[in-house]
């Protein structure tokens, strides 16, 4: 393995030198670049592609706040945030490799085609060398494919589908956020401890890539506990009123309802389920329970007190007490007046990880950056020890099992962490059947 690495690095170096040599006579033309959007001046441009309109606009706005904070910290402004707690010390607060960090933003609208168009424009017109952000797996998979073709690095934002680092993984794409399999693996032991191993689960699932993989993951994890899956019902995205999907649950012997919904759908389906008295119901002499495997605090606000006592999982939460999380919450909270969301956290961390990888590689060449990220172990960014696995470009770290708080003390205090599931329990083999079917392929430098 190390032989291959050495050869590859040597090839890269030789290529870069040869490229630079060839480029000399035409240094002011685009043909001079050794790779896509090679930064020539005193600055480097990052592209932040977030939903600025559409139903996930609030989450997008929070991602953008985190990106701005990360850029400030990289350029040596502010209090430095997690740069002070990050295990790598390659970043010195003078930009990236001495180049000042600038950024452009695009609007994904949470639509794959719009997201591709805005990413393309940032790469082609604004010279973005890296694309990050997003709040949907459909968008992440689409933009990741585009970045692979264009020869830039994609640092995924909030995307939870197994496919992003499974069948749709790409050599230029990297995901820090956890995935549906990890949610299932983290939740299962907690569900068994609290609700027992003899349960009948009924799934309502958002009908797109993320919903399908989450349904598959949670069903597999709960069936392994001994739970029986009564039914899996797909619901259209943005169904609005879920009453006609909730009422059939009353007629089955299901005693757990699993809502594979996110955003507005989660708010509506959960609100409807509570309205129909599911939580007050007794089935098979057990209390009826509702589980929301992927919780988002920003979205949970819309469901109000309906989330109280409901179990789910999350990538990160502002109440964590490790040094990295505290530093991030402090800088974010001081600048904006409220704590960051998990979407903001993953975007901030991804930006730092990218910058750090460039600094360690000593080059902006996407293939050198990818190599620096592959198999990289780090700490101090809020999730404990984390590995960027080389096989699929997925981060492996602890997963939080959370519960809707019964007595919130503030409008931000909606979730409480009930268990931190160690990374070892949520790690799977790279060729796990839920992630099979795709290949990273070769890195593309443009």
């Amino acid at each position, binding site marked *: 393995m190390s032989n291959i690495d050495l050869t590859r690095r040597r090839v890269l170096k030789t290529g870069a030198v040869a490229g630079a040599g060839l480029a000399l006579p035409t240094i002011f033309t685009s043909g001079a670049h050794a790779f896509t959007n090679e930064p020539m001046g005193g600055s480097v441009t990052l592209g932040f592609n977030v939903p600025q309109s559409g139903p996930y606009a609030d989450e997008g706005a929070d991602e953008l706040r985190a990106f701005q904070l990360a850029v400030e910290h990289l350029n040596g402004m502010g209090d430095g945030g997690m740069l002070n707690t990050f295990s790598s010390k390659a970043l010195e607060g003078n930009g990236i490799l001495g180049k000042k960090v600038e950024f452009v933003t695009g609007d994904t609208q949470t639509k794959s085609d719009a997201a591709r168009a805005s990413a393309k424009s940032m790469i082609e017109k604004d010279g973005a060398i890296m694309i990050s952000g997003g709040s949907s797996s459909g968008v992440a998979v689409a933009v990741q494919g585009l970045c692979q073709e264009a020869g830039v690095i994609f640092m995924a934002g909030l995307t939870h589908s197994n496919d992003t680092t499974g069948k749709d993984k790409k050599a230029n794409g990297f995901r820090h956020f956890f995935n549906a399999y990890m949610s299932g693996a983290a939740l299962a032991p907690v569900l068994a401890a609290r609700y027992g191993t003899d349960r009948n689960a009924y799934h309502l699932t958002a009908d797109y890539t993320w919903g399908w993989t989450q349904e598959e993951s949670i069903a597999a994890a709960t069936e392994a506990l001994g739970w029986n899956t009564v039914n899996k019902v797909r619901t259209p995205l943005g169904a609005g009123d879920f009453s006609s999907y909730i009422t*059939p649950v009353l007629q089955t012997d299901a005693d757990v309802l699993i809502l594979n919904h996110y955003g507005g759908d989660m708010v*509506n389906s959960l609100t409807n389920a509570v309205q129909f008295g599911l939580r007050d119901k007794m089935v098979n002499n057990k209390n009826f329970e509702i589980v929301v495997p992927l919780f988002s605090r920003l979205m949970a606000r819309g469901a109000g007190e309906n989330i109280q006592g409901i179990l789910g999982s999350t990538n990160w939460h502002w109440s964590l007490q490790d040094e990295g999380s505290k530093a991030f919450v402090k800088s974010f*909270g001081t600048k904006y007046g409220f704590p960051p969301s998990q979407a903001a956290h993953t975007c901030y961390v991804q930006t730092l990880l990218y910058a750090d990888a460039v600094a360690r590689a000593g080059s902006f060449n996407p293939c050198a950056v990818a190599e620096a990220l592959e198999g990289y172990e780090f700490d101090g960014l809020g999730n404990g020890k984390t590995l960027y696995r080389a096989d699929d470009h997925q981060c492996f770290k602890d997963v939080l099992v959370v519960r809707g708080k019964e007595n919130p003390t503030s409008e931000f205090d909606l979730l409480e962490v009930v268990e931190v599931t160690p990374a070892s329990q949520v790690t799977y083999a790279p060729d796990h059947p839920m992630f099979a079917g795709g290949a990273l392929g070769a890195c593309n430098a443009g």
Partner: protein
Amino acid sequence: METILLQLLNGLDKGSAYALIALGLTLIFGTLGVVNFAHGAIFMIGAFCAVTLSRILNWSFETIDPEKLDFLGNPAKIKTPYVEAWFGPEFGGALIDWAVPLAILFSIPIMIAVGFAMERGLIKHFYKRPHADQILVTFGLAIVLQEVIKYFYGANPISTPAPDAFKGSFDFGAMLGFDPNMIIYPYWRLIYFGFAAVVIGAVFSFLQFTTFGMVVRAGMADRETVGLLGINIDRRFTFMFGLAAAVAGLAGVMYAPILSPNYHMGMDFLVLCFVVVVVGGMGSLPGAVAAGFLLGILESFASMNAIKSILPGIDQIIIYLVAIVILLTRPRGLMGKKGVMEE
């Protein structure tokens, strides 16, 4: 049997919302001849009237509690709503709890004003233009309105719960001799159905039993003759636009506890309600109400698992399928009158 009963209730509930919105749509079409694509946005603004009143009642002053800390470790600011400080925690708390029913009163003048402003400010300039122009301009208006709401309230849904007294469900199963807990239906949804019935009844009575209503109906039948009789029919029609806006707004206010309001909820209903109007017959008030309930019930039945296992995805298209069949067999819709949209 239980499933059918439950889906019937679901259908009546959905149908209530469809009927209320479609009633306003068809009222505007029947009087002013305008195809108003901004009507969904009016429904959405109604729901945000409930959100706004709830925010006004929750308007708070901050006191610093040195014993508690906020998320940054600074002394926490404790918020106390003004109404609780003024009227005592009990009455003030009850006011906040009853924000949605109170918003009915709050919303009527606002919605009528919004309706007048829309009609006088924009839509009246399009009376003589083709329907395509009307659709474009009202659709544009709908997008502007929803972006304005998004600017002030954000994109996430906002929880607007019903009063505590109406939480929980009514057990029909126990009443009808089935197993308890098999046929339960939330109180608030039952109230919504009853409320819709009252509003629809009031609108029909107003048009049927008042002189004003009689003139409006005469104007709908033959605008020119009524005008020649020296009656200012335009002013009455403007009032009807305000009334239609109020009906859609009330539908929105009462819907807020069922679905947490968000800025695009109007668009979600708009297309369906247009189908309802077309199926009911353009300009026909009873047609809109009947079609609203009919399509609501059909949609609920189509989403039953037993039916979906035979015809997957049928719940998504049933309304449009029915619309096609009805328009093929009765091109004017269920209760459409001759001559409407046929010039």
